[in-house]
């Protein structure tokens, strides 16, 4: 039997993480959170989450970094903005979820072959290479890297979509692709320079 401490100690906190979350874009008002729970009530996915949005807000502003970044909640968020509209303190919860995802990807807090970061990575690569997304290619690449067997179960649907002209085989590309590359590099350079 594996025994785990169920109470969190103050010593488990990471004050740097708490500082970071309240200074990140969108986190300005996290200290105003009343813990009213309207975010969790309005969230269509909270019933699947290990920490509901309300708990996640509290844990992150107190600096429980491990718990927050390894939580399933940040990946379940579909960015539907229901919580943000419901929040009486106008906390930018959806944006914080984005910030947490970004941080979790940076620090590699996710299971191997987990499809969400893989999809995000492939998406970015395709934007850099073509400037536009061709959905069929994106789906193919994601499944090749995460769950090849699901390609088989999806092939029926893929064929139907192809026949309906909704799955173009040709990749869409913008004309001035070099502009996208130049802009991406510029953002990276400015970010470094201003330490954002």
């Amino acid at each position, binding site marked *: 039997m594996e025994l785990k401490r169920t109470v969190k100690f103050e010593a488990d906190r990471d004050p740097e993480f708490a500082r970071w979350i309240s200074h990140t874009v969108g986190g300005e008002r996290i200290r105003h959170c009343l813990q009213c729970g309207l975010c969790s009530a309005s969230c269509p996915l909270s019933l*699947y989450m290990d920490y509901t949005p309300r708990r996640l807000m509290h844990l992150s502003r107190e600096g429980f970094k491990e718990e927050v970044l390894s939580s399933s909640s940040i990946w379940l968020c579909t960015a539907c903005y229901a919580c943000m509209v419901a929040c009486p303190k106008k906390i930018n919860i959806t944006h914080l979820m*984005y910030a947490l995802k970004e941080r979790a990807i940076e620090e590699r807090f996710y299971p191997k072959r987990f499809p*969400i970061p893989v999809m995000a990575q492939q998406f970015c690569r395709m934007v850099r290479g073509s400037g536009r997304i061709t959905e069929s290619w994106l789906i193919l690449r994601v499944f090749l890297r995460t769950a090849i067997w699901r390609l088989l179960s999806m092939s029926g649907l893929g064929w139907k979509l192809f026949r309906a002209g909704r799955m173009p085989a040709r990749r869409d590309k913008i004309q001035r692709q070099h502009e996208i590359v*130049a802009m991406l590099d510029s953002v990276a350079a400015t970010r470094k320079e201003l330490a954002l």
Partner: protein
Amino acid sequence: MKCAYYPGCSLRGTGKAYEESLLAVFRSLGIEVQELDDWNCCGATTYLSVDELTSYALAARNLALAERERMDIIAPCAACYLVLNKTQHYIRDYPDIKTVVSRALATVGLEYHDRVRVRHPLDVFLNDVGLKAIAAKVVRPLKGLKVAPYYGCQIVRPYATFDDQRNPTSMDQLLEACGATVVPYPLKTRCCGGSQKGTLPEIGLHLIRYLIAEAQKNGADTIATVCPLCQFNLECFQKEAGSQRHPLSIPVLYFTQLMALALGAPAATIGLRRSLVPVEPLLAAKEIAYA
């Protein structure tokens, strides 16, 4: 004034019928649009979760291109509409983001001074054209067709400028002007799961199931959508989402397909054939001529 039409990537793939029918409605209503020159991917919700700063720069390129032409943007895709709007807000609110974006734009000879409005077709049809003018142009009223209007998330949340955030009605009004009956649909802004169906399938299916079941329970003949991903989710997984006891089967159309139909566009030009759940039997049953 001429507007820049920003289709977004999905309207060139799974959402092709949206583009076809939208352009047909533009033609019928005499709205002049010009495709935004060399537009690029807005970054959608995916880019935002890996690299926010870059995603704002990507979106800003489109805004800057439209500004150079002195045009407003019409963005039919819900994700594009949200991301472009969000980028405008964040450039206004955060000086650091503005610096990053302006520098990136400068490297390719572009500038952005916040002079572009990003609009959704719902907004344009309702507030620029108006219900009266649309009703006057209807040649094939959608009499007897019961529609569940599904708005999804990102059109009205979080930056609703033309409709209510909790109970939007713009599509209801447009469809009624076309002669359709709008059934009550309390889940109209509930999330369809977005890309969850691809990444976490069981959870995606769970969200899809309730949306379709609710529409069927309320007597809808079809669901009208405003977003390519919502349409895809609701249409393509009905068999998986249903069960033997509660089978799900209902055509899911873009609101523009219904409008184009009412405005007399030929069926072949509005992508009805691209539906995986056939639409023709429904239209025949309601005696709506669609040829």
